[in-house]
């Protein structure tokens, strides 16, 4: 009922704003050159570095590419990124691995319109069917540490998602897709976008509803019990994102309600399906204030209220304990930008957040014997970029202060240089993972883990259409925070386990002409036998970590049959992986199984305005050869691999209407 009222109010506001918008835009669009000469303009962006010069290993995927790949949610897009791979956690939740390392819990940061999406209790980032791909304008992925600028959840990667906004889309987009396995409906996704912009304000509103199932095969746990995922692995997601910019005041709001209904638990499957819910409301207010052409600053205030990993229904059961904790967070910060010239700019600032977790069932937190717990965090950071004829130099650092765990300081340095046809990047960064509320509650002496990452990238523009880049990396993490589940006490355990990390390389070859394009990416990692964290180790192969293939290839070709019809075959190849598939309770022995190399082939057909002017129709078949791309738990708890999705047909309709 509340949602209905909210949508009603939104519609009213849209109708009102629309009338205003059309008037203001029209007057600006009809200005003559003489009039335009008198218009005052705001200060240009402070950094003027393109991707070849950015101090980071960066992948950018645009809305056009997402549309052509016929992705339904963000995980379809992330598969294309070298070194990124999904793994399974517990209770049916999926998360990300980066360059062979489990990053789901506090080491990969997701930003949606600048708002942090990692939940605060465990800092995890649940994925699949919760962020609709069709509502994304651009994704920028930093494959490597981002802590110096982005803080304690960005130790291994940063995924910066910009949703569709009035800066690019002035109108309405309605989008619906349906997909099916041979024996079950796989997913139904409905999205709507409305956005408009004038000289004084802009707004955009996105709403999504997704229903899906995780798969349609049988899941068998480590004890040999099985259930049919086609019947008991439902996923339901509702998301709403609003952006409003009025005379420079920028307000972003994101609500989501993501629920997984599954018999999937920790080790043994449950006797029936239970839900695990992630509910949150985020709001952020910011305004860029320009003092002069060189100096500006942006104050920010944010608020979050969430219930992650929530289960509180009144089931008569002892196998799944209720978990109902509300986290509220106030966040505040200010960043200063000084752009001395095109040659030098400096960004610095500070931020502070206060998190309070309250157990709604009256359970006490073990660290303070109360039903609520508070965590205060503050940080100051700075990053300067100096462009010289020799190269561009970047120096940055962040100091973090916390009320529970020890203070942290992480520096980074970078050197980039772009010639006409080549570019070079050399980066050395420290990063940290901040322990979350539940980490510090489970283990009061836990400390932040620290990573040191060295990266080198060389790129070449081979022809006007063809480019290649190769990067090598060495990531090493000390005091690695690891999770384990104690099934005797039914409790979470966290500890600083030792050293982990990987080294390897990634390469991307891309071709693009006006009509057609293709890309192929290969990634490789090895532990270099440096890991001492038993939780991630593979006994029969010391060079690999659990769940993640050492070799991965992703390739695609986009062929334009004519201006309205495009075909895109896609291939994802994964080398052998390892996972725990069974467990002998009597001898306490885990069985680590080698999962053979496999390939998933998809074909997508996209038509633009083929049947009607503003209507795009896409059809595709995912996993044509019905490979079993299992989702493996990347640490040695007793969760058997979740079977992959079988062959899936998908149909998508997108209607767009532009405001004049």
């Amino acid at each position: 009922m509340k949602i209905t009222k909210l949508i009603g109010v939104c519609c009213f506001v849209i109708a009102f704003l629309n009338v205003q918008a059309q008037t203001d835009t029209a007057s600006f669009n009809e200005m003559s050159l003489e009039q335009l000469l008198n218009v005052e303009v705001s200060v240009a962006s402070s950094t003027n570095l393109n991707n070849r010069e950015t101090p980071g290993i960066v992948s950018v995927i645009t809305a056009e590419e997402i549309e052509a790949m016929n992705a339904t949610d963000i995980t379809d897009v992330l598969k294309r990124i070298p070194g990124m791979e999904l793994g399974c956690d517990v209770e049916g939740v999926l998360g990300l691995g980066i360059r062979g390392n489990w990053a789901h819990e506090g080491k990969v940061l997701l930003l949606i319109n600048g708002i942090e999406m990692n939940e605060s209790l465990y800092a995890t980032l649940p994925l699949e069917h919760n962020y609709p791909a069709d509502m994304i304008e651009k994704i920028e992925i930093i494959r490597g540490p981002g802590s110096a600028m982005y803080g304690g959840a960005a130790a291994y990667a940063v995924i910066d998602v910009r949703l569709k906004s009035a800066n690019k889309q002035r109108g309405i987009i309605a989008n619906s897709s349906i997909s099916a396995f041979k024996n079950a409906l796989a997913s139904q996704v409905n999205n709507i976008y409305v956005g408009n912009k004038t000289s004084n304000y802009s707004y955009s509103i996105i709403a999504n509803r997704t229903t899906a199932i995780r798969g349609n095969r049988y899941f068998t746990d480590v004890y040999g019990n099985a259930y049919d995922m086609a019947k008991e692995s439902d996923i339901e997601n509702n998301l709403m994102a609003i952006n409003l910019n009025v005379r420079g005041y920028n307000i972003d709001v994101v609500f989501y309600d993501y629920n997984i209904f599954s018999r999937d638990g920790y080790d043994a499957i449950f006797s029936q399906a239970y839900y695990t819910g992630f509910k949150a409301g985020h709001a952020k207010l910011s305004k860029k204030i320009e003092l002069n052409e060189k100096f500006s600053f942006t104050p920010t205030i944010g608020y979050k209220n969430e219930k992650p990993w929530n289960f509180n229904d009144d089931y008569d059961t002892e196998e799944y304990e209720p978990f109902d904790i509300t986290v509220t967070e106030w966040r505040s910060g200010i960043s200063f930008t000084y752009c001395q010239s095109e040659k030098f700019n400096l960004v610095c600032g500070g931020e502070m957040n206060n998190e309070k977790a309250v157990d709604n069932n009256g359970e006490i937190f073990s660290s303070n014997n109360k039903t609520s717990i508070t965590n205060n965090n503050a940080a100051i950071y700075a990053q300067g970029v100096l462009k010289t004829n020799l190269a561009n130099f970047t120096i940055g650092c962040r100091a973090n202060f916390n009320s529970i765990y020890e203070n942290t300081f992480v520096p980074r340095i970078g050197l980039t240089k772009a010639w006409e046809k080549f570019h070079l990047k050399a980066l050395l960064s420290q990063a940290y993972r901040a322990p979350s509320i539940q980490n510090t509650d489970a283990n009061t002496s836990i400390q932040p883990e620290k990573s040191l990452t060295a990266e080198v990238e060389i790129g070449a523009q081979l022809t006007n259409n063809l480019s290649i880049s190769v990067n090598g990396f060495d990531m090493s993490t000390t005091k690695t925070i690891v999770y384990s589940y104690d099934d005797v006490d039914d409790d979470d355990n966290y500890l600083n386990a030792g050293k982990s990390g990987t080294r390897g390389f990634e390469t991307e070859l891309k071709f693009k002409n006006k009509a057609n394009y293709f890309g192929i990416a290969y990634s490789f990692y090895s532990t270099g036998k440096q890991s001492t964290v038993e939780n991630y180790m593979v006994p029969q192969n010391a060079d690999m970590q659990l769940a993640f293939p050492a070799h991965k290839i992703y390739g695609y070709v986009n062929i334009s049959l004519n201006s309205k019809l495009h075909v895109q075959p896609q291939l994802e190849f994964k080398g052998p992986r390892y996972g725990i598939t069974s467990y002998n309770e009597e001898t306490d022995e885990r069985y680590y199984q080698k999962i053979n190399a496999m390939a998933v082939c998809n074909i997508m057909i996209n038509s633009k305005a083929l049947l009607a002017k503003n209507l795009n129709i896409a059809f595709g078949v995912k996993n044509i050869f019905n490979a079993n791309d299992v989702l493996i738990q990347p640490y040695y708890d007793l969760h058997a691999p979740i079977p992959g999705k079988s062959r899936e047909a998908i149909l998508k309709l997108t209607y767009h209407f532009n405001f004049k």
Partner: protein
Amino acid sequence: MRTFFKYLWPLICFPASIFAISVFYPVKGGEMKESTVKAMFIYNFTKYLEWDKESAEEKFVIGVYRYSDMADELMLNCNQKKVNDKPIEIVTLSNYQAISKCKIIFVPAKYINDFTQIKNIAEKNNVVVITESEGMCKKGSCINIIRQEKNLRFEINIKELTDAGVKIYEQLKKLATTVY
């Protein structure tokens, strides 16, 4: 540690007070995003230019060299407009090949290193090159948009426009800050 956080409270209070003060701070109503105004400049230039060769293309193509904000702004502000009864099409160019299809090519400042190659192709194909970097008109750009304090201005290079086979109206020369 408590004392430390006590002293860091200004970090919360400071942004809050800035917001509060900025409410009473006079709002500069007429201030626009630089790229938005540049997009409208580019559209308006078409009213003062005449291309020698009549294009076989059904659309009037404005190209933006590689990805930049400008493509978005042009798309938003000019997509439904026409030049000589031809609808405008905005394209982002990933390489030099498609330059010949354009009537105008905009080179963002961050890709200015590629200017010489772009200019060579544009000149042979009746394409107007527009830049946004200091001193580019002297270096061979047809039109260069520059910023002077809070406003945008533009310079034109008549020789380059003539070499590209484009006729320029007198009014545009009068509005330019510098004519080469």
